[in-house]
């Protein structure tokens, strides 16, 4: 059976999902209880989890859920908003095409023909969406929205330092959408405290976020049966197991890590141990005992007080450990070991085969090591002394039921993902089309007139340039190849351009050197615009190489200029937009840490600027798509303000915001809280991608065959 894949069908599906999801969106959202086939009960407000728990059957619904999950994997936030936005977009499209359909029917075309014609129309719209996403959205973001952005970093200092109050606002808003309403304030405070406690220095936030995100499971302990308010942060690392041997120790506590049994065995795998006599057996057993004793004694003499082992140690080792008062923790998981290694860079010791005296340089100091009892379960509590920017702390999460603890755990993990995303720059690229007559000449003129100080302006390209400098040493042939590679890329002319000063005959070698100097001066600035790993690898050029290759550079540059001369139509990539070129690629970014106040601020701003853009735009379909998107975006604040009335109702808020924008006054938000701009932006692009996917489908073909058969076929082919 085949069903027409139409906007109408997709809209019906999306509307059903919207009703479920809108119940738990925003600060007024409520909880959803999910049961698993195992009988486990889970509480959740996480959109992604809900959609997956539904096990939807409808093919379009499944596609939407798949899109949501892939978006979540990327950003970890925004599943509910995804569905709401998609639903509004479909609704908008449906409304627009309904009108057009009337005109189509008047033309009296056959139904079947009309259907295919409809599909062509969808294709058309989806292409318009694609153009919108690749060009207009970034343009609007960069040109208009960016002036409203706030930053999570405190503005007073030049270095990027986090502003604690902003982080609190950001997390507060995040947890309001994730955690039950009577716990969000507490959990958000807990998270904030945790984050700032773990940071060794102000600028270490990226590393902390990354580490916590990677090792989140190891860094928190869930306890059921206690009220949520008993949750707390404890310094140090808590291992989810008990000591095999615990000997209280004070002062200088050294720890070592082993990954094999300390007691030597008769034979290792792949070997044979031949016993000739009973005496031999006894002596070898005696040797094993003595050997174990010696190793343990040696550990004690080196002041080792704690032995961490990834395997189970035999009774003998445990006995000697107790005798020499060394605490033992066995059966550590590989994740736990990797956390320890990351925090204190401790590596496993290698036990020597023969000699009894061996070096235990791979040890570390801990502040304390003691058992921790949480709800009559014992844990190992280690006061690790961190060697990285992360100061180890653990979160103890309490809750009356496991489902609630899990929800808080997920929300905290998601918050770290969100922060990690926030600390990254997000690239924007778009094209500005300016009708300029002599566009072909412009780049060349520009090149010729620029002096080395121009390089300052295009500081963003210094890295690939340095790469060329280094490569130049390798000789002519190679560089030729490189130049070719460059010319295959979309953005090559900047590389060429920068060498112009060197190529002019007037420039002396010292000048070139200076240019290089300028380049290096620029390099500390972080402008991640070109993401080409091949180029970045060679960035480590040093002073000496530059000097050595000075001559070659100038030689090289002549070559390059030639090529540049030939291909004068190369598009010029530059941040400054004043340059008149036909197709001016603009690369910009949403800088790390950009935030906007919550409560639909982003959506209202986007709506305003998109509508403005649509008014000016000449192409009708782009204007239409922009209008549809602009209107659909408003659906999110509409839901957020649904329960509010009076001064806080949505029309009131919207009108006030519009007024502020028109008169160039700052927008006033009634909510306290911030949200990440890049998160919102990514959500928008993900939804648009999903929509284009839906629009390009014309038929859904239902196959009533067991999927199993396909697997069989695959395996046969492999054979």
């Amino acid at each position, binding site marked *: 059976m085949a069903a027409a894949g139409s906007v109408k069908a997709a809209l019906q599906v999306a509307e059903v999902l919207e009703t*479920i999801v809108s*119940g*738990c969106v925003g600060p007024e*959202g*409520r*909880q*959803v*209880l*999910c*049961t698993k*086939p195992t009988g486990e*009960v889970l*509480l959740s407000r996480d959109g992604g989890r*809900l959609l997956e*728990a*539904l*096990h*939807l*059957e409808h093919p379009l619904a499944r596609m939407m859920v798949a899109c949501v999950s892939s978006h979540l994997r990327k950003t970890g936030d925004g599943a509910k908003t995804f569905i709401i936005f998609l639903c509004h977009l479909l609704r908008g499209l449906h409304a627009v095409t309904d009108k057009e359909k009337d005109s189509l029917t008047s033309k009296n075309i056959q139904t079947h023909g009309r259907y295919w014609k409809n599909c062509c129309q969808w294709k058309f719209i989806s292409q318009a969406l694609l153009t919108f996403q690749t060009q207009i959205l970034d343009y609007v973001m960069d040109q208009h929205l960016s002036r409203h952005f706030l930053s999570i970093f405190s503005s007073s200092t030049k270095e990027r330092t986090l502003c604690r109050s902003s982080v609190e606002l950001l997390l507060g808003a995040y947890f309001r959408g994730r955690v*039950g*309403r*009577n716990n969000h304030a507490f959990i958000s405070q807990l998270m904030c405290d945790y984050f700032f406690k773990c940071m060794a220095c102000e600028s270490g936030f990226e590393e902390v976020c990354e580490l916590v995100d990677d090792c989140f499971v190891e860094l928190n302990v869930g306890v059921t*049966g*206690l*009220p*949520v308010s008993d949750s707390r942060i404890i310094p140090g690392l808590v291992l989810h197991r008990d000591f095999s041997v615990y000997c209280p120790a004070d002062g200088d506590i050294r720890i070592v890590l082993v990954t094999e049994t300390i007691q030597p*065995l*008769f*034979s*290792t*795998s*792949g*070997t*044979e*141990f*031949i*016993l*000739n006599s*009973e005496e031999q057996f*006894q002596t070898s*057993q*005696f040797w094993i*005992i*003595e050997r174990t004793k010696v190793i343990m004694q040696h550990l004690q003499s080196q002041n080792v007080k704690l032995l961490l082992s990834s395997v189970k140690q*035999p009774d*003998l*080792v*445990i*006995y*000697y450990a*107790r*005798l020499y008062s060394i605490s033992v923790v066995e059966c550590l998981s590989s994740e736990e070991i990797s956390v320890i290694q990351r925090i204190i860079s401790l590596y496993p010791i290698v036990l020597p085969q023969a000699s009894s005296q061996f070096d235990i340089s791979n040890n570390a100091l801990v502040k304390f090591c003691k058992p921790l009892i949480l709800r*009559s379960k014992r844990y190992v509590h280690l006061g690790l002394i961190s060697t990285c920017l992360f100061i180890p702390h653990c979160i103890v999460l309490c809750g*009356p*039921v*496991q*489902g609630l603890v899990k929800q808080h755990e997920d929300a905290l993990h998601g918050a770290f993902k969100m922060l990690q995303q926030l600390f990254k720059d997000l690239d924007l690229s778009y094209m500005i089309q300016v009708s300029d007559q002599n566009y072909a000449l412009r780049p060349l003129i520009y090149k010729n007139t620029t002096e080395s100080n121009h390089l300052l302006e295009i500081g963003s390209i210094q890295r690939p340039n340095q790469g060329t400098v280094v490569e130049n040493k390798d000789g002519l042939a190679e560089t030729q190849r490189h130049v070719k590679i460059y010319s295959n890329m979309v953005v090559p002319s900047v590389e060429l351009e920068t060498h112009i000063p060197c190529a002019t005959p007037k420039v002396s070698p010292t000048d070139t050197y200076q240019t290089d100097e300028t380049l290096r001066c620029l390099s500390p600035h972080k402008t991640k615009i070109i993401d080409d790993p091949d180029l970045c690898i060679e960035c480590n050029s040093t002073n000496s190489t530059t000097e050595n290759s000075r001559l070659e550079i100038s030689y090289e540059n002549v070559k390059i200029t030639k090529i540049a001369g030939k291909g004068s139509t190369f598009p010029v990539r530059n941040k400054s937009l004043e340059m008149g070129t036909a197709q001016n690629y603009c690369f910009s970014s949403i800088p790390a840490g950009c935030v906007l106040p919550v409560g639909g601020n982003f959506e209202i701003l986007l709506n305003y600027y998109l509508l403005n853009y649509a008014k000016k735009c000449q192409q009708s379909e782009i204007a239409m798509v922009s209008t549809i998107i602009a209107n659909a975006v408003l659906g999110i604040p509409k839901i957020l303000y649904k329960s509010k009335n009076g001064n806080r109702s949505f029309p009131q808020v919207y009108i006030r915001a519009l007024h502020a924008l028109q008169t160039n006054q700052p927008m006033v938000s009634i909510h306290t809280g911030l949200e990440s701009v890049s998160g919102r932006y990514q959500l928008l692009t993900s939804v648009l991608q999903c929509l284009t996917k839906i629009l390009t489908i014309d038929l859904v073909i239902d196959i009533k065959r067991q*999927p*199993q058969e396909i*697997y069989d076929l695959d395996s046969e082919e492999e054979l």
Partner: protein
Amino acid sequence: MARLEAKKPSLCKSEPLTSERVRATLSVLKGIVTSCYGPSGRLKQLHNGLGGSVCTTSQSSALLANLSVTHPILKILTTSVQNHVSCFSDCGLVTAILCCNLIENVQKTGLTPSSAIKLNKHLLNLCTTYLRSKDCGCLIPVNFDNTQILLCLVRSVLTSKPACMLTRKETDHISTLILRAFLLTIPENTEDHIILGKSIIVPLKGQRVIDSTVLPGILIQMSEVQLMKILPIKKSDSLKVALFHASLSGDLSDAGEGTLVVDYGVCLENAVLDQLLNLGRQLVSDHVDLVMCQKVIHPSLKQFLNMHRVIAIDRVGVALMEPLSKVTGTQPIGSLGSISPSSYGSVKDLRTAKFGFKSFFHLIPNEVTVCSLLLGNRNDTAWDELKLTCQTALHVLQLTIKEPCVLLGGGCTETHLAAYIRHKTFIERGSIPKDGGYTQTELQLITEAFCTALESVAGSLEHDGGEILTDMKYGHFWSVQADSPSVVNWPDLLSRCGCGLHNSQEELNWSFLRSTRHPFAPQTCLPHETLGSANNLTLDCFTAKLSGLQVAVETANLILDLSYVIEDKN
């Protein structure tokens, strides 16, 4: 071959609490837990149609563990109570009753969940701050010089579990035993932090309750034949003990992952036995008097040891290892080679004891932190219930040592707290925060719902159709027997309040708990003179009750906040 099966779609229900079925099941659960509560609570007989033993109980832990709940909302409620019980042992029924009542009452008010939840939390905060404050009228500080209060606490735990089937005399006996067992686990010379010992409960099923007893040290059960074999040992000050956790059975230790090739004629068993006998020789030459092994001792080694007047006890089991090592001060030995002298320990004395049909080895340690509580009861189900009760009581005592205070029991804390909350919100009605998100009326409605829920916990103590009253001075709980004359002089009819702190001759005013009263300020200070004299108070564990209150309100909030239930039908 992996079978691929399409997953069935889940079932999604909106606003689960409004459905009639959910309400009905909730009220059934409420009926079950309410009828179990208190000293006069009704017992439940749980039996599985497919087999297994029949369980007669009124305790939440046994009840909820055996009850199979299918609806997800009820599951949340019961697991929440079970988790609380596994943390604190006590106050499970209180938590369950309060939670059910709170959900029901809030639903009746018809307010939106968001404001109800906010207000519930606000009221809970009022409760916890009051209970933790110094001038709380239902909190008694515990002085460990006087065991009277601790004894009252234990007795309250015992009397609230009617399925133990104890007479008054038996209750007194068991209470003193439990308290004694607990006191024995406290180490004598305490440093900065106390590490409590352990009380091991030894079953004496079928014996009389009155025969139950507490012995310091550890009892190891063994057959009479084995016991006969043990020779009377020469008396000295103390006996030297070796404790093995490695097997002494002569099996080959772990040979590694490779292969072991043994030549023909080489007998490894003999080699190992030689080793064991060498070990025996060392033990004898070290003057060890008692050898204990977690696992099996080889008969030859056993005989060898017996010949040298060393007592050998094997198959001790892993459960006893930790207390044994603690009591004797030994380090469990894992080596068959040389034994370091520092791993030996000692016991003061070794006796044999016989209780009923069972015979035991009795190790009497030098310093007692481990004791054995021998419990008897008439039948198996009653014994199980008594054992659970004793564990609860011991746990409650441990919790009390951590936070040395107790709450008034017998429903008085609940009624007093309800009176306090009513009064507090009444006097603060004018000063509601503007951006708090709730109105005066909403606050009033929820306060009424919250306080009624608290009072209905107290009300659940009465199962025989009697009337429940509260006095207008202390806000305590009083109950009157059913079918008492309608026009009466209250002081004559009432004797003591629920907790036993006040008697009816104190010139008090009473009012029915169910009737509406004007909010009054319950007297907060405890009368110290009555406290000193009162020796028959009903008391509750502070930590358990406070946490139970919090968990109940949090769980109720959680359930009220549900907008959808998605059931995975796979």
